[in-house]
Each structure stands twice: as C-alpha cells, then as structure tokens.
C-alpha cells in the first residue's frame, strides 16, 4: 500500500533559521508526535521510538530517520524506515524551501509504503493517522520556529 501526502507551511522566520532547524536531527525529532525516545546517531541521522495506535495495531514502532539536505536545490529530502510487530513502514519525504521577505515556505510531499498488519488497516484509519503525524510534525516545526522568533 502506498499513501501520498503533500502540504505547505508558511513560517514567519528567515530561510537560514528554518534551514538550520530542519537539518538538525534533534529538532526534527522533537517535533514528531508520540515520540517516546530518540537518539541522534550523527548530524544527519537519528533513531526514534514512537507510540503507535492504528486500529487494532497498537505498540511501539522503531524508526531510523535519515536527513539528506540538498542546499543547492533549496530542498531537504528525508527517508524514514522502520516498523514493529510484523509491520514495515517506509516513508520518503521532501520539502522545497522558498523565502519571501521574512517568511519561509515549506512545500512538502511524502510517499509512505506499508507492509504487514498495518497495511491491512491502511485504507480506513492509517491514512488519517499518517496524515496526522505528518501535519503535526510540520505544525510543530512552525510552532517551534515561531516561538523561537
């Protein structure tokens, strides 16, 4: 099962501030909802343990997150792989960054691929759940950058 997502966040912060924030594993980890534990492996990589409750599938998922900044293209690519209790989730996401005056816009897209029990419930509740995770993450990015400002 493949699920596609996209959205846009406009943040009242400079390009450099946003770029630096989203390239920091610890900052990104702090924005993901339901994270129980996160460990930064290197400047572009972190592991996160996330509490998941999707229909009958409930428990902890472990994810390995890799950030792949493309400063020349003003783009951040990200891969998230992992899963739990017999399920696998692979997410490929990317955000294009543009700046106008004091505001920075993130145009983001994501494709999630799922296998195992979590895929079975996908059609009904996973879609909404995944959307919630992604939108909450970017909303938190915006909130934290705005607070900092």
């Amino acid at each position: 099962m493949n699920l596609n997502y996209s959205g846009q966040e406009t943040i009242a912060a400079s390009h450099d501030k946003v770029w630096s924030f989203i390239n920091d594993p610890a900052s990104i980890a702090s924005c993901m909802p339901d994270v129980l534990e996160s460990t930064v492996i290197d400047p572009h990589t972190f592991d996160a343990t996330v509490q998941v409750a999707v229909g009958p599938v409930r428990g902890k998922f472990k994810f390995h997150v890799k950030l792949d900044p493309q400063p020349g293209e003003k783009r951040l690519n990200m891969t998230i792989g992992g899963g739990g209790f017999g399920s696998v989730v692979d997410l490929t996401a990317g955000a294009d960054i543009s700046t106008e005056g004091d505001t920075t816009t993130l145009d983001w897209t994501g494709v999630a691929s799922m296998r195992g029990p979590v895929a079975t419930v996908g059609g009904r509740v996973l879609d909404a759940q995944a959307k919630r995770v992604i939108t909450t993450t970017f909303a938190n990015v915006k909130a934290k950058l705005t607070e900092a400002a």
Partner: protein
Amino acid sequence: MSTTAEPEPYSIGVAMKRKEDPRFIRGRGNYLDDHSLPGMLHLALVHSPYPHARIVKIDKTAALAVPGVVAVLTGEDLAAHNLAWIPTFHGYDKQMVLCVGKALYQYQEVAGVIATSRDAAHDGAELVDVQYEPLQPVIDPFVSLTDKTLVREDREAKTNHIYHWEVGKRDETDAALAKADVHINERIVFQRCHPAPLEPCGVIADMNPGTGRLTLILTSQAPHAHRTVVSLVTGIPEDKIRIISPDLGGGFGNKVPVYAGYVVAAAASVVLGVPVKWVETRTENLTCTGFARDYHMDVEIGATSDGKVTALKVKTVADHGAFDAAADPTKYPAGLFGIVTGSYDFPTAFTELDAYFTNKAPGGVAYRCSFRVTEASYAIERAMDILASRLKLDPSELRLKNFVRKDQFPYPSPLGFVYDSGDYHTTLKKALNKIGYAELRKEQAEKRARGELMGIGISTFTEAVGAGPSKHFDIMGIKMFDSAEIRVHPTGSAILRAGTKSQGQGHETTWAQIAAEELGLDPQNILVEEGDTDTAPYGLGTYASRSTPVAGAAIAMAARRIREKARIIAAHLLEAPVDDVEWSKHAFNVVGIPDKSITMQQAAFAAYTNPAPDSEPGLEATFYYDPPNLTFPYGAYVAVVDVDQETGFVKVRRFLAIDDCGTVINPMIVEGQIHGGLTEGFAIAFMQEIVYDENGNNLNTNFTDYLVPTSLESPSWETDSTCTPSPHHPIGAKGVGESPNVGSPAAFVNAVMDALSPLGIEHIDMPLTREKVWTAIQAARK
C-alpha cells in the same frame, strides 16, 4: 428365538437427529485447543511483512531474553535436521517450512518461538529481529507469466510457469467454433477466496522419549495421509507416529495440507522431549493456510442460431502462489476441471490451463468442492447465461435445449468423464414449477417497465465427486480408496471405524445409518469412530465430497461381509442349509418361512457364544473400497434478486435449490449441508475475496476485512430434491456436501446480471459488492 423381525426404528432415508449434537450443544465437544498436556510448551510463529525479500540476518537475542521463552527456531535450524523443506501434497513441488534464504509471500513463516505460555511465545515472536532485503514482488499471474521476476530461485527451471495441462480435441473444437453461427468469448474470473473455518488450524506434538512415539493431536481432514507424510519427511517409522484428529470446527479443504506450524511444533517436541502446542490466529489462518480458486478463465462457446451448443473451449491462467501446494490427484494437476462441459451435451470441447507462481500464499485447496469443480461449474453456468443473452433466449430454454438427456447415461463427456446417472430435464422443470418461474418473469417485465431492476438466475450444475478409482486417482502415490471396519459386539451393538474424518458433516449419524440399514441394528447403538490412526483403518480422509461416495460404500460393503457371515450363523441356528437362508426385512429367515427368523443381534450373540461349526468366532469385517467411477451429483438452482440502483445493494429475495445426490441417507443432514453450502456460496458471490495490493500486502487478514455472513445477512433457503441413484454405488449415494457451494455462485451472479441486463451490463466478476454493482450501474448510465 424371536419369531418376528420388527423393522429397525432408523435406517437410510430417515431424518434421524444427529448423534453428535448432544455433546456439541452441551459444550462437550473436544477440539484441538481444548487439549492440554502436562509440561506442554507453546509455539508462536514470526511472519514476513514482505512478500518477496532476502533474509539477511535473524537475531534471536531479544526474543530469548523474554521470560518463559525456551527456544527460537529458524529455517537454518530446521535445515540441520533436513526439515527446511517438505513435499507439497501435489507431489511435484516442495515448500519451505520456515524461510530459508528468501521470503516468498507476505506472512510466510520465518521463525518459531517456543515458550512456557502462549503469551510468552507471542511476546518473543515480536522481538525476533529479522533483517530483510526487499525484492520486487510478483502479484499478478499475468505479470508472472512474463518471467521478468523469478519467484522460485530454488527450482531448476528458471521460470514462474509451473505446468501446462490440457484435455479434449483442440483442432476439432477450434474448427467448430470457427463455423458456429454464434460465438461468445468471455474472461470469467473466480476470485481468490479462503475456506476460513471457524476453528483455525493447530497441533499438539508430543514426542514421548520413553516410548519413542510421536503423537500429533492435529486439525486434520486426512489423518492417515498426514501420518504417512510425517513418516516420509522425518524418517520416523509409521508405527511410531499416531495422529489423532479431534472434533473439528469446520475444514472445507483448509485442513488438508501440511502447514509450517505442524512441522515446527513436531520438530520442537522431538528435540525438547515435551509436548508443544501451536494454535494459529485468525490472521495466520487467512494469510498462510490454503486459499481456494484464483482461476482466470477465458470461456468460448459456439452455438447454432437456434441455440444448440456446438463447441466449448476454456483457457485458464491459474495463480498458485509461491508453492504448488494444491492437493490435487497426481494425474489431475488442475483437479477435475474437465467437468467444465457441465450438464450440457457439447459435441466437442477442449480446455487448457497454465499455472504460475506468484508472491502470494500457496494453496488452491478444494474449498467445499471436488478438486476445481466449483471453478468449472461457475465458468460454464455463467457462460451459458451470456450465450442465452446473445441469442435472446430464456436461460432455462437454452439449458433444456442442451442438457444431456436421461437416455444418454452413462454419458461419456467430450473431456473424458463418464457421467453415471442424471435426469436434468426433470430436475430443472421441477425447480421452475416450484419457484413459479413464469410468474416471476411476468413480475420482472412489470418491474422493468417501471424502471426497477429485478433478476432471476439459474444454475444447473453437474459435479464430479468421490475421488476416486485407483486406476486414475492418487495423492502422492497413495490410491484414493477408503475404508471401514465394523465390529458387532455379542449383545448386538457395534463399533464402526472409517478412514474419513468428519468436520461437521455428521458422520457419526450417517455412517451408523448405513450400517444399521445393512445390518438391521439400531443406529443409536453403533458407535462411529474416526480420526485416530492407531485404531481407524487407513483411508484418505474427508474432502472433495468423497466420504459418502467412497467410505460410505466401504461401510455398506463391510456390513454386507458381516451379513454374509451372520447368514452362516443364522443357518446354524435355524438348522437350515445356508443357501436356504435369506436376509429380508432386517432379519434372516428360511426362504418361504418368513415367520421364523433370526435377528442380527441373535446372530451376533451366537457368533461369540455358539459359533457355527467350521466357522471362525466373532463378527467383524473390514472393507477397502475402490470405486469403479466417480459419482455425478447435480442440481437446479434458481435465485431471485432485486437490485437497488441507487446503492448497488442486492437483495436475494428467494433462492430455491433442487439437489439430486442419489440416495439420501439422512434428509435432515442433507438439508443442513445445503443450507451451509448455500451460505458459503452467497458469501463468495457477494462479499469474499482475498485481495493483494500492488506491494503484495494481503488486505483481508481478519473477519472485519474477510466477511463471513451471519443469519442476518443470509437469505432464507428453499430446498427440495429429485433422486437419481448412482448405479455403481452400493447404496446409490452420490455425495452432496459441496453441491450448494459449487452450484450457487453462478445462480446469484446470473440473477444480478439478469437484473442489470436492461442497462447493457453482461458480466461483472465476483464478489458483487455494493460498490462494484453501483459503479457498473453508474458507468452504464453514462
């Protein structure tokens, strides 16, 4: 000595209440999961989330740290004991027990965790860390046939093609089709579905180090065949293996194959020397164990302009999943699909089939049908309706015009069967009269004039069941006979053991009735035992509607052997020559002297207390029955539906099933079988399908996604019968348990297509979900 012989209270044809039901309705059934043995450990399995992936590494560390976990087994561990692969029941292929090298379908078993409790085993299973390298999966058989991605690297032939099978006259059929006035060609798909018995599969494996015997309490439809397979795979002599199949909560073909959990539990018990239990979850049942159908059939019929069929050609692509695990007879890789000419007198026919591997669960079991008969019946019954539509003939008229006539039996079909008996015209006419066909057509015309969608669907199927004659039928080389052993006790009660295994069919009652009829005993005092290989005679088990045609015949023949010996005893008691003694009205008497008789009870008592001179004491017999032919039960079904064009909801208003299964042993049990089979056919027609998405995810892993109808959804069934006994069966019986599941899907679909025909819709593949019907209506309106 009695001077009169009262007829026994129960015999063949009597609707006797089921002997097994008092224990079931009191909660005293004894199913696999009711069993517990001292010191027993539990097995849970780890499954692959990927449909196609290399196993890079399996780390057991975290699982072994779970309190209660005793051991974690992988495919490599089994390989050390030569148990990594086992033969499939089809005999031409093998299947992995636990993944070795690659996972070939989603939910394939990767590892087994043994623990002191079921919960600990499942906790451990969640912590087995498996690293996979995902590979491109092959989900569609029409992609598989291109061989762009190879499913089975282990096989010598580097292709996904498993086999080609064909029967009939290709050139003659092609020529007849080319000459036909009318020629239809339709792709008809029988979707992948699953038997989904309410009780899933399981085992308790108990290797006793003291005796050296391995006992398997096993959810098995074929205990003797399973014992032989276990012996061949493990090298354990067959006398050191005992299979006990306890009460079974349904099987429908799902409990014929050998599954990974059985082998891992047995291997663990052998190594650990303690009993090991495995009971699968619902998800495991739906995702790992034998599926059914998945046939993609291109059906061509040629006919004259006045509706006489001239030729039939069917070309099928079969999706077998990752292993060729269909438990078909060796000479019949596509089962009895050759019955595809159905009830119709085709002058010529040809059918061919190609089977392919895909990254899906293996199976192809006979789900409440004789091997692949359901697919064949559905194809021909749908195609006949499409032909009727093109010819603008009433589907009943087309059928009556083309039926094999009563005087043509025994009828040699163009695809190689010899149908034993039938009277198709009488059965269909009875159905049409009983349902009020002419009035229904009138009502339909009135509704159509008002813009309402009402449909009437007919299915007049013929099955080939009762495999089978040893000259043609075997499973892994074992001929498909069956057996019965009857011992009459001194006081006139008896024990009857058979090589079959009831999963709800009521053998404890019907087997007793056959023996009671033949022996003049009270069936209440005939104990029927099945399922224990230590005590039952060797038989191939219960599936493919073979129990009554084969074991039922063995029971009658064993009883007749007993009767022959009892006649000698009766002659001794009557002080008459044996040749002067006859069996009449359930007792022996001297010919011409009916008022002086010996009952079977009296003969039995004498067999142990006053044997005839030169006669062996005791009164028992065994019979191994090798049927001379298959039997060919048939039926005429009519469904009446209303379709709501705004929602796509199909209301099955009426459903009439007229079955002809030859001699009926217990009409109440037959009616129950028909109700159950119709309900399963209804589910297949309207709601059931195992769907895989483009990534190979099984999307129907539980009963919220794979629907089982309850009494609330199921229509009310009307049943009746005609009786055309099988001329070659000792009591004329043909078998019936699977007929309603074989015959009904086409009746439902034909009815819906009939309702939708004013919109120009000719065919929709099952299941006819509301969404599918609604979408077709919307598309037709544009």
